[in-house]
């Protein structure tokens, strides 16, 4: 068994090194495609975090005073609930607001320590029947001067624009990433086919002396797997850089205040990295499996 493992590793290593230019091409293609793919996912996460408050058609938020009494709160709730211009609304309590805050700033423990539930006002997030800007402003303004209300904040056109543009960009990255992934799978397939061709005589002898099918196939499949894993590893490195210098850069920029909330948590980065690694492994295995099953007649 030990001999078999060392044989497999040696053969895989030899294959990788013998055609180093093809190996590098396959790894780079897969890493670039997965980096684009992963960055698109991170961008989506970032924008979702930045605009979480405005998802699902919410057009304005009625912020209550934390000190508002139950009667004031009930009056606001009733007038929102009974308004024919409101399609839906959500009440976010102080505890829920804190939980949301903790999710958003999970990587900033100092900030989390400094904030408690009582610091955060409860709010009503309102989805109007008609999303037209004038109608929304008119509707929201009705609540502005009511007792117990601290402020009414509207989803600005800018935020909607950011959501739309970010969606477009991340979707574009996703599509380019998918096309490149397909190219990477083809490149892996071709690399393995070339490797099989170069070792045709050896494979013939292996078959003659009774090497099992998987013994012949496995080094080629491992080669594809290495392409996938190394490519995905580089892509994850790329994603870390994108988060640090692009996404965090936006959120720290003073001139782009609207993007202040744009951030990707460590958990999200970890989660997306696992996705990218899994896709890299899958592409590597599928590319090489297709090559050995069609070109390696054992």
């Amino acid at each position: 068994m030990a001999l078999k493992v060392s044989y497999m590793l040696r053969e895989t290593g030899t294959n990788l090194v013998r055609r180093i230019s093809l190996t590098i091409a396959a790894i780079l293609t897969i890493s670039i495609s997965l980096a684009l793919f992963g960055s698109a996912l991170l961008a989506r996460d970032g924008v979702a975090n930045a605009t979480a408050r405005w998802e699902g058609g919410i057009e304005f938020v009625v912020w209550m005073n934390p000190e508002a009494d139950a009667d004031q709160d009930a009056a606001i709730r009733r007038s929102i609930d009974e308004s024919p211009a409101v399609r839906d609304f959500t009440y976010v309590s102080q505890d829920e607001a804190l939980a949301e805050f903790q999710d958003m700033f999970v990587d900033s423990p100092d900030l989390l320590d400094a904030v408690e539930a009582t610091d955060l006002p409860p709010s009503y997030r309102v989805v109007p029947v008609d999303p037209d800007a004038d109608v929304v402003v008119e509707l929201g303004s009705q609540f502005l001067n009511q007792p117990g209300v601290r402020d009414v904040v509207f989803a600005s056109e800018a935020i909607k624009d950011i959501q739309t543009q970010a969606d477009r960009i991340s979707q574009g990255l996703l599509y380019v990433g998918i096309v490149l992934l397909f190219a990477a799978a083809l490149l892996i397939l071709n690399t393995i086919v070339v490797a099989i061709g170069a070792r045709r005589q050896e494979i013939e002898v292996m078959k003659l002396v009774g090497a099992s099918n998987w013994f012949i196939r496995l080094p080629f499949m491992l080669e594809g797997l290495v392409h996938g894993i190394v490519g995905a590893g580089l892509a994850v490195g790329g994603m870390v850089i994108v988060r640090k210098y692009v996404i965090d850069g936006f959120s720290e920029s003073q001139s782009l205040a609207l993007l202040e909330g744009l951030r990707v948590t460590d958990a999200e980065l970890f989660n997306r990295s696992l996705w990218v690694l899994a896709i890299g492994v899958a592409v590597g295995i599928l590319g090489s499996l297709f090559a050995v099953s069609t070109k390696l007649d054992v």
Partner: protein
Amino acid sequence: MIKLENVSKSYKGADAAALQNANIDIGKGEFVFLVGPSGSGKSTFIRLLNKEESPSDGRIFVAGKDIGQLSSWKVPYLRRNIGCIFQDFKLLEKKTVAENVAFALEVIGRPRSVISKQVPAILELVGLSDKLSSFPGELSGGEQQRVSIARAFVNRPLILLADEPTGNLDPTTSVGIMRLLDRINRTGTTVVMATHDRGIVDTMRRRVVELDKGSIVRDQAQGVYE
């Protein structure tokens, strides 16, 4: 050891069958020459036995097993019991003599301790103890065929199939190779050898099976070439 029952083989696009309704029974430890002109079906006969080809019709038994019923993942295990040697040796040029022979054991998962014992022993048997580190390109044709025989026999197969093993060798060298095959046969290994070499067949006087246009036309004990 080997039994063919009404075996026929036709290749796609070919006018005539490569083998037609062949029936033969070869016992354990026999030495059989397959003779006949080029295209008479000798190579097809050999390729059917190690399942490089499958018959279009009929059944083939090797060591009592119907090899037509073998699933593809079991074919390698059949081949471990069948050694093969060829006219063109099929040695790996980038491996030394010892590595070529070791390769046959390595790829079927034999432990290193077994390989390090069996490789020098088999190379001594074929008379190449002093060529362990040589590359095939540095050897004569006869020596290369000896390496090929060592590789085919190192796993002690039940059957040795030889397709024109002396086809590329001069008569003197051929005699040496035949002596070696005879010696292997005496250990109980069944040998089936396709050949055009009249001198060898007439000298050895073993069972001769003659093929013509895919049919067995003669099966003679202690036979001659024709």
